């Protein structure tokens, strides 16, 4: 029995892991674009992006997931996502990337705006170009500032992946819960907690190491 549970949970965890990885890889560049747009001098662009960020951060991810997955079919009458597990996975990825990109963009914005303008000015009077100032001076300081809040979000993402259970994506929680129905046992569901704990534990150590690496200077 244990081997069977382990196999099923590991299969579910693989989906969780994929969801986690793809969301992270997608949301970081999208977040950067949203961030640059939300600080843009083009007022309408800025307003639209700020509005989207407000909506996304102000409503539950679970609701966003439901709307993105069921919305097209129920409102527009066409299921964009295709049927079955693949469709659910794509819809989940889209919902997660949008949601996390908005959170990341605000972290990036905070990190960039926290750099004193004197840093850029010091670079400018030394004859540096705008791109030299960004890459040689600002970037490292921004990274140092955003690592702690990004770590928090990344750990939260590990656990947020379980929200995709609501549209029956066959991730870790779904795999654990399946045993309640099929075998009438609850311990596999509890056991999923071990997967989350170990995974977030590893991430905490890795992210802590990165933070420590940047300890040599203060901003």
């Amino acid at each position, binding site marked *: 029995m244990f081997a069977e549970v382990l196999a099923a949970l590991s299969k579910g965890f693989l989906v969780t892991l994929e969801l986690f990885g793809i969301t992270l890889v997608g949301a970081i560049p999208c977040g950067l674009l949203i961030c640059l747009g939300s600080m843009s001098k083009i007022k309408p662009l800025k307003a639209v992006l700020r509005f989207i960020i407000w909506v996304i951060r102000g409503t539950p991810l679970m609701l966003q997931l439901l709307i993105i997955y069921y919305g097209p079919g129920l409102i527009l009458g066409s299921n964009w996502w295709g049927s079955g597990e693949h469709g659910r996975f794509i819809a989940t990825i889209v919902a997660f990337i949008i949601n996390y990109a908005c959170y990341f963009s605000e972290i990036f914005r905070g990190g960039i705006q926290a750099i004193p303008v*004197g*840093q850029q*000015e010091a670079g400018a*009077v*030394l*004859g540096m170009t705008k791109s030299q100032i960004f890459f040689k001076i600002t970037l490292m300081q921004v990274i140092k500032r955003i690592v702690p809040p990004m770590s928090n979000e990344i750990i939260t993402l590990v656990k947020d992946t379980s929200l995709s259970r609501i549209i029956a994506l066959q991730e870790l929680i779904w795999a654990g819960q399946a045993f309640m129905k099929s075998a009438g046992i609850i311990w596999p569901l509890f056991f999923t907690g071990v997967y989350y704990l170990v995974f977030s534990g590893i991430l905490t150590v890795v992210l802590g190491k990165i933070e420590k690496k940047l300890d040599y200077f203060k*901003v």
Partner: protein
Amino acid sequence: MAILEVKNLQKKFGDLTVLKGVDFSLEKGQTLAVIGASGGGKTTLLRCLNFLEIPTKGQIFVNGKLIFDADDERTLTEKEIRQNRLNFGLVFQNFNLFPQYTAFQNIALAPKLLAKEKPEFAGKKKAIYDEIDKKSLEILNRVGLSDKKDFYPHQLSGGQQQRVAIARALVLSPSVLFFDEPTSALDPELTGEVLKVIKQLAEEEMTMVIVTHEMQFAREVADHVLFMDEGIIAEKGSPEEIFTNPKNARTKAFLGRYES
């Protein structure tokens, strides 16, 4: 010929006119002290001369050559402004050292980036970088900090940070070095070491413009003193004239606050 000449420099921020037409010139090797109450336009003047603000009107000449004219678009391009900045160095009130670099790296960074743009860089990278390293160390030595070479800014005192900042500006060999209240952010016991470095530069005939509230220091180190008030130069003269025998009523009132 004057190394720096400023003609009718004006700066408006919206409806507020901060500089109402400033004219002065500076000979090579001279030190000019700029004094005056806060809000009189001293800092804006320095920021305009380093193009951190673009003057609304006026002209700037270096060694007789017009480098900036607010009415001439060609002197306003980003490329041109970047080039013009290299005539000058600026030392900020709050140092603005780059926190992720050591004292030495802070100094060597800009010259290395500039060297990359030179056509002869490709084949001689190592020789050029070695030369810059050597020069950076010499200058660090000149401000008395060779033993702090590998220290990060947060490991240095305010006075030491400001001396690194001075070295960072010097390494590019600017024609004129500007100081914006270089000791205002320092604890009183740390101002001495910074003033000493500036005094030493004055003796070495570095051309400098120093905005300062240290009247005693201005008197000792400056060849000329400008008193700025409400966006104009209200009075200029030798330190002797300004400090012992000011003619302008506002100069008198301002200096009166520093006595007793």
